[in-house]
């Protein structure tokens, strides 16, 4: 049972009259519960691939089936709904709302999902507790350390129980020790059965995953399982 299936996905950009092939007919499949790292140097197309898997961007050609639904032909609003329900993002720069406290940041996807205030409160507290921030709920991002911020972002990503956790260089802005801590959180989430896709250019970080897909020049260079 594949969760993600890409078939000959191509993405081209027009940039100053020049056509850039970010992805060239990429095909691959990820099953439910996998922990995959996507690696590649900058400019390789890995960010583009992540954007397409995360439904932030759409392919120029090819098909993308997520959870048995063909996402490649969806419009903006449908994609927003897929992002809300199926995908949890964790970004390198955390991307929390600076003026909102931890609780509100985590609650936000639930608001967009149309969940009642009572239910939101319960689920949000649960999510923050699960990342060990039960006592930081009223703190704003600038009152927290980098590791704490990234854990808020993880709680936000998980709060809607998405099919995929999509992490883009999640340790890029953290020191090694804190980075390891966050990777520990991912490890635990993977053990619980979550599907995790990790985009990184660091071998050390990629080593946490059980499958590594390497991208170069818009093509899959290698795709190997570890251990």
């Amino acid at each position, binding site marked *: 049972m594949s969760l993600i299936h890409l078939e000959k996905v191509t993405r081209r950009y027009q940039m100053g009259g020049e056509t850039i092939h970010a992805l060239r007919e990429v095909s691959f499949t990820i099953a439910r519960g996998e922990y995959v790292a996507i690696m590649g140097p900058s400019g390789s197309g890995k960010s583009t691939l992540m*954007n397409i898997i*995360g439904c*932030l*961007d759409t392919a120029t050609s090819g098909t993308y089936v997520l959870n048995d639904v063909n996402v490649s032909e969806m419009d*903006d*609003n449908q994609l*927003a*709904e897929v*992002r*809300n*329900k199926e995908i949890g*993002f964790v*970004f390198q720069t955390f*991307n*929390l*709302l600076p*003026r*909102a406290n931890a609780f509100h940041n985590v609650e*936000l*996807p639930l*608001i*967009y*999902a*149309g*969940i*009642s*205030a009572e239910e939101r409160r319960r689920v949000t507290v649960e999510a923050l507790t699960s990342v060990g921030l039960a006592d930081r709920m009223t703190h704003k991002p600038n009152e927290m350390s980098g590791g704490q911020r990234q854990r808020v972002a993880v709680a*936000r990503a998980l709060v*809607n129980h998405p099919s995929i956790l999509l992490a883009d260089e999640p340790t890029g802005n953290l020191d090694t020790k804190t980075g390891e801590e966050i990777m520990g959180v991912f490890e635990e989430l993977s053990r619980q059965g979550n599907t995790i896709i990790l985009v990184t250019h660091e071998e050390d970080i990629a080593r946490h995953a059980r499958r590594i897909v390497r991208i170069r020049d818009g093509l899959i260079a290698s795709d190997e399982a570890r251990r």
Partner: protein
Amino acid sequence: MRYSSEFLEGLRIAWDAIRANKLRSGLTTLGIIIGIVTVTLMATAIQGLKRGFVQSISALGADVLYVQRTGWFINSEAEWRRQNKRADITYAQFRALARQLNLARAVAPQVDTGRPVKYKNRTSSSVHIIGTTDQFLYTGGLTVAEGRFLSSAEAEGGRPVCVIGAQTATNLFVGEQAVGHRITIGGYRFEVIGVLEKQGDFLGAFSLDNQVIIPVQQFTTLFWHDPDYTIQVKAISLDALDDCREELRGVMRKIRHVAPGDEDDFAINQQSEFLKTFDKVIGTIATAGLFITGLSLFVGGIGIMNIMFVSVAERTKEIGIRKAIGAKRRTVLMQFLTEAASICLMGGLIGLGLAWPLTLVMARFMPATMSLSVVGLAILVSLMTGVVAGFLPAWRAARMNPVDALRNE
């Protein structure tokens, strides 16, 4: 459920954004405040003018017809010349009319002039002297404050009695009862038998309270032998006004021997003609006035649009984050519209708060009060300004591509 949560979220964001940029929000709001103050004051002034006018002409009585030689509103000089050649309306015609009308509750003749009035050493130099009968109490819609009105015997007879207006009474009598004393009107002595209740003024032009009512017989004997009469006819009811007018016209034509096919050689005037003419004038003033004041609101709206574009540009990253976690176009659009509308609503409320004392000042010159409809209109207009001015910036935000927006720092 979903919409109310999203709306509450929109309000929270709007409030945060306004608080985060207090000075900027304040300056932008100022444009809306000025716009709302001017529009509100204009609307209040127009309402006040209208109310003042209606109060004034209500002295004419809605159910009273005024039979006169000429009409109140003459549109051309040729028409004016023609009407001026008509024969005067005489006392005999009044008597004949009063006898023959069935649909009239009261019929009274009226002739007027101006004369000085004296009591002891006090003089009122130009007082409106009206010669009429006891029926004038009904056709004029008068109320007697002290004493009594003319009796029918006094109206027809020669006893020199008079009823005086409230202002005339206070002008002539200081610390003294007016009723029972004799005053001198244009050199002749009259006994005051009644004082009228205060009526106000007519279109601000002259006071209805500086007048003296005397029997029509006294008037024609002492001041003016063959005057041109106005005949006031009060219909039996407001509903019967049109029927009464028709009957009146027929009887009057007969009395004045107008041949069939010829046009009337008299005019039947009524209050509603005043209203019609006034409505036309005030309509023009209102349109022009609200347009001009509306311009200031328009400028305020441009300020809002400008600041919303800045706000959207500054928060591109935030828009990207919200979209990444599932905000739809509609949600982002609503968020920025709510923000624009909130700023404008705040401006509207502050504007109303400022306009309120100004209205009280205005109330010294005209019967102006800030009505609920003006308040409602101001709130609605400020909200609309926000929505209209905020739409383009909000639309730009809603259509942002999440990948580009997230990349923005």
